């Protein structure tokens, strides 16, 4: 009877027992910051759930979510896969130069919904002639040299060409992005554009300011965006978030509002991008002391959040609606606010998945 067998057997069983006990005791966290979701709760026994097998499934989910050392184990897995050559994890491309990209290829891109949404915008802009449409190109399209070697990405140029053939007032910013590529137009760890990227687009539309008109204040140097969370264990760098402060505007140039322009509390959370406008909300308005009577209504996704501070320069009233969360009547809202301009502003990838735009459909 070899001693090594005895030791090994007992050691292994001890590992199994400890794993189980520690997992049961590991009840501290109920929300995962890296995954941005609530972790499974310990299920209550219920004969119906048992009969359907759901009780067992819930128990398994609980154990899976609360496994002792779970995050470190997942980091280990990601590292091993990366060193074996894998360059995409959880639909994120791990690119060169520390760039992370959403993995958007012709296999997972929702072409049908894209076409439907474009058609909705088309109809909408026939009815409301003061509508402009802006789609922000993806980081993977502009910075394709930093994609992993041989990686495929959707051909965004075809999409922009398709839109331009329609009678929509479409603002194509791809040339601006390509020209200014050497500057930091997107975050490395997040799919959003930076404040600088938003500025260049703003300036392209309104053409009335220079970089020096603003104080560029670094409000964070520790931003790790949505793409970082998906590949825990692999990303080491952080991004900086800048606030662009208009030198010519007074501190209280916002006269009335139902929201913060900047939510400093959010910088303490994982998702620091929520700093802009406090995250995604359904309806936000600002009234400035720009007494020019002009107003703009923006239908948006999260991309416009860092764009809003620039647009306050030009309008007295700014209305911002996120159609995913807005439950009011869009037609009534437009009639009531009667905006001078309407802007539909989305990132291309979000736009192709978005179902909120259905609320713009069939507005008579």
């Amino acid at each position, binding site marked *: 009877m070899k001693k*090594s067998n005895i030791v090994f057997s007992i050691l292994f069983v001890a590992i199994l027992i400890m794993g189980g006990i520690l997992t049961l005791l590991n009840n501290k966290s109920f929300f995962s910051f890296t995954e941005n979701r609530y972790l499974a709760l310990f299920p209550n026994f219920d004969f119906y759930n048992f009969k359907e*097998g759901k009780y067992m499934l819930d128990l398994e989910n609980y154990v899976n979510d609360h496994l002792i050392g779970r995050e470190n184990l997942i980091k280990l897995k990601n590292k091993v896969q990366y060193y074996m050559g894998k360059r995409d994890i959880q639909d994120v491309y791990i690119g060169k130069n520390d760039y992370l990209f959403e993995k958007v290829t012709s296999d997972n891109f929702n072409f049908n919904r894209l076409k439907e949404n474009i058609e909705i915008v088309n109809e909408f802009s026939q009815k409301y002639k003061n509508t402009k449409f802006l789609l922000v190109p993806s980081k993977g399209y502009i910075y394709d040299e930093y994609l992993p070697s041989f990686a495929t990405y959707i051909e965004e140029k075809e999409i922009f060409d398709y839109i331009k053939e329609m009678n929509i007032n479409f603002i194509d910013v791809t040339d601006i992005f390509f020209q200014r590529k050497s500057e930091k137009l997107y975050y490395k760890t997040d799919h959003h554009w930076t404040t600088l990227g938003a500025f260049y687009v703003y300036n392209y539309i309104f053409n009335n300011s220079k970089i020096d008109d603003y104080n560029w204040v670094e409000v964070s140097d520790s931003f790790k965006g949505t793409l970082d969370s998906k590949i825990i264990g692999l990303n080491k760098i952080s991004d900086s978030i800048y606030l662009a402060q208009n030198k010519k505007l007074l501190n209280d140039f916002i006269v009335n509002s139902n929201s913060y322009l900047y939510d400093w509390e959010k910088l303490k959370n994982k998702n620091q991008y929520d700093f802009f406008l406090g995250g995604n909300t359904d309806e936000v308005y600002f009234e400035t002391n720009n007494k020019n009577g002009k107003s703009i209504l923006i239908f948006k996704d999260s991309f416009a959040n860092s764009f809003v501070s620039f647009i306050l320069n030009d309008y007295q009233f700014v209305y911002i609606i996120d159609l995913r969360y807005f439950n009011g009547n869009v037609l009534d809202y437009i009639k009531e606010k009667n905006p001078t301009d309407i802007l539909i502003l989305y990132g291309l990838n979000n736009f192709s998945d978005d179902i909120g735009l259905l609320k713009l459909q069939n507005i008579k």
Partner: protein
Amino acid sequence: MLFSSFIFIFFFLPLTIICYYLVPKKTRNFVLLFFSILFYMWGEPIYIFIMLFSTLFDYINGIFLDYFRNKNNNLVVKIILIISIVGNLGILTFFKYSNFLVNNLENILNVNINFPLIVMPIGISFYTFQTMSYTIDVYKGIVPVQKNIWKFATYVMLFPQLIAGPIIKYSDIYNDLDKRRESFEMFSSGIKRFIIGLFKKVVLANSIGSVFVTIKSISFDQLSFFTAWIGALAFTFQIYYDFSGYSDMAIGIGKMFGFNFKENFNYPYMAKNITDFWRRWHISLSTWFKEYVYIPLGGNKKHKNINLMIVWLLTGLWHGASWNFVFWGAYFGILLILEKNINFLKKRKTCNIWAHIFTMILIIIGWVFFFSENLSSSFLYLEKMFLIKTNIVDKYSFYLLFNNLVLFIICFILSTDKLESLLKNIKNKFDKPFIFNLAYIFLFILSIAFLAGDTYNPFLYFRF
């Protein structure tokens, strides 16, 4: 419940081990039976009654068979045997094949039959074959009847092999039921086998499997030669590591409780011809079919080619209620007939690298039939693999290759016995069990890490 889950590894297994080794020897089968029922009920809270019925059914058949045989009533004995076979096949056919049969009837007769969708109970293909092997072996006089229903139930429901095999014949295990002797050596060997199986399934099979899934989701007519081969190779490795990994875990767990199950895989991709392949792949199934179908039909003494074809059609059908599986079985049936009948194939020199490569290509072609939804897509896929109306590479080829090259190489090396020989040599020269044991613990942790990664589920947008 799956072996490759945290609930099994950190709760069910240690609990079973503790209870098992705390109780006196004569109670140990009861502990196994209890936990086996729990194990099965975890996945099938309702259908467990079918398995319990199946167990009781063949237990009673065995008792009556023995009783009437002692009374020398050969007619009744034969009738009981037929009842057992028909009953078991009936249950299996109803739960596994009725929808398939009805669909085919509908297509032939061009009618619409309102037949409900039958869900197949987990493991039914395995446990019906096991109970059938019992009655047939009692009939043949190979094993004594088992009068103790608890022991018999323990055999049928033994949780290591209950859900995914290997198919254990009663004759291989009935001694172990009573007279097995557990030991630290066996337990330790069982742990190591379990860890290897877990590693194969969770690290190798799952990883190479996701490569296959990616390629399978591409429309077959857009595939290039290169990508089609990567996909076929990925599946070839996935199914081997998945299945043999699970068998390894079953054998390992069996050892922890003193049972010696027979090997189910023997480096099948080292086969030198197709006959050799089927002596190395899913050995328990081909053994079962040989003993209980091929030989009773006449074996290689009477019309052997027809017997072969029947056995292989059934083997294919056993794998799934779908024509592509039957075709896959027929494909191997034809190859085996050719090998057994064409002289120059029989007398081929062994250990020839080209023989291995040629055999491997035949096996991979077989897998294409296995994983395709239907015959026409299998042929479409094969066209791509053989450069018919096809580009050499496409936009996916290099990305898939370079991202997975190391993984493919590891899969290839571990599908041969080179590593095992190497490790045996090292072990003989340097007797340092401590380092080897540590390596197993590391493999275990790595496997747990990969399992944990599969549970990672991030949400981009937060909604209350």
